[in-house]
């Protein structure tokens, strides 16, 4: 296969995968939603869960985007240093977003700032957004996809606290944001929290946290315990599906952390709605692939 053929093949697979993730939620999210519905006893909340599951079924049956806001594409790439298409990946993902916009179809959401013109393709300056991690001595490539909707991107927030505010300050920062903006952001939410040095590192980690599976835990035992405490506490706020009350407010809380400066405590919060359109696809060097988020996805295999 020529380099061009390989690029076209990977573009086609990625366009199909992006389309598939708008139609079908990842398996971990569906499984958590099932658990939350089973634990709910409020009749109004139950009727909202019923509508959600009817929508999941119908979207899959008709092959249509489950939510009209198909978001802006964000990718996290963990690329092996010897993956043959490393240098072409950005071009491939941009082409895949354009193709998925046309074929799925996705709603055109990308507006160039200052010019205030919708590009019509969901691509443009800095879009799709890509964060890179190069994995030494590997020839494969893992791509995590996320379609960030407007409604759940609105509550995103980051700040640098003074160390004296401590982890209690972090808890207040997160819960304040959720009480004020959570009910509008399509709960039950996935909450991503970043704890680090500055606004940019904390904000980036809060988004990275949303790329982790629902139910996964931070490898640091204390951070993991804090994830469970926040999850339990936010659920006890009783926000419920659509913010109208119910047992669960969140799908989960994921914390990602890094060092802080001795004089700072950076914290960031990113939220995802219940229709959390995340996918992960792992390519081998010859473009064979597998996905652990969407067991049903196939493309020419």
């Amino acid at each position, binding site marked *: 296969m020529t380099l061009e053929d390989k690029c076209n093949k990977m573009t086609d697979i990625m366009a199909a995968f992006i389309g598939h993730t708008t139609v079908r939620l990842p398996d971990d999210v569906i499984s958590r939603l099932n658990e939350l519905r089973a634990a709910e006893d409020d009749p*109004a909340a139950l*009727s*909202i869960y019923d*509508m*959600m599951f*009817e*929508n999941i079924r*119908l*979207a899959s049956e*008709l092959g*249509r*985007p*489950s*939510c*009209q*806001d*198909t978001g802006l594409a964000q990718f996290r790439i963990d690329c092996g240093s010897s993956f043959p298409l490393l240098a072409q990946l950005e071009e491939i993902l941009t082409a895949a977003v354009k193709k998925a916009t046309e074929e799925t*179809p*996705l*709603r*055109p*959401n990308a507006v160039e700032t200052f010019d205030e013109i*919708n590009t*019509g393709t969901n691509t443009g300056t800095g879009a799709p957004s890509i964060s890179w991690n190069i994995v030494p001595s590997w020839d494969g490539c893992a791509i995590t996809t996320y379609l960030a909707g*407007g*409604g759940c991107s*609105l509550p995103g927030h980051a700040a640098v606290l003074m160390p004296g505010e401590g*982890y*209690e300050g972090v*808890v*207040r920062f997160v*819960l*304040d944001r*959720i*009480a*004020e903006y*959570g*009910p*509008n*952001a*399509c709960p039950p939410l996935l909450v991503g929290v970043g704890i680090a040095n500055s606004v940019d590192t904390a904000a980036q980690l809060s988004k990275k946290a949303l790329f982790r599976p629902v139910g996964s835990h931070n490898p640091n035992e*204390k951070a993991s*315990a*804090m994830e469970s*405490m*926040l999850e339990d*506490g*936010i659920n*006890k*706020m*009783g*926000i419920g*599906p*659509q*913010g*109208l*009350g119910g047992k669960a407010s969140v799908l989960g809380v994921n914390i990602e952390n890094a060092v802080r400066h001795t004089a700072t405590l950076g914290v960031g919060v990113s939220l995802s*709605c*219940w*229709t959390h359109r995340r996918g992960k696809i792992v390519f081998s060097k010859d473009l064979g692939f597998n996905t652990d988020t969407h067991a049903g996805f196939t493309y020419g295999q």
Partner: protein
Amino acid sequence: MTETINGKTIISTPFTDSDLNALHAGDVIFINGDIVTGRDDVHIRAVRENIDLPADLRGKALMHAGPIVRRSSDGGYEMISIGPTTSMRMEKFEYDFIEKTGVRLIIGKGCMGSRTAEACRKFGAVHCVLPAGNAVVGAACIEEINGLDWQDLGMAEALWSLRVKCLGPLIVSIDTSGRNLFEEKKKEYNARKEEQIEEISKKLETIL
């Protein structure tokens, strides 16, 4: 006109004073008839730029929504996915929008603020929430796309005139007395938030 069919309250356009005044925050309804989509840019154009809407909203519903629509083979349009968007973004304009257009039923997502509640009380309007993220179920309620205005705003921001059948469940979040369900709920959430901050902080002390 308001009917009860199989236990469901169904209200059809054109909405009357008695249809709307009978609704209370927390009620669940479904609607039949004519709705028009309008979100950020429609509100900016109508209120800030003071341009008259090309569609008459009197007696109809406004839906805060930006659908996915595809050209169909017969040259018309096919509704693919439609659901409500965050209503709070329109808070800045909604009082004036209601006054200007005479719209009396608004469908959206999440809470709206005190100015909209004031407009609902003054002009006899209601705001309802359609559970969001359910855009394929939403599209199944659209019988016909019968108008497209301000197409220059793009697919999501344009005014789409739609005929709907049994769109819902819609939960009344602000009623014509100005009662605001979300404001009440948010007070509860905030009270529990303070308890939980204290609770979590105590637990954290044991591990940090």
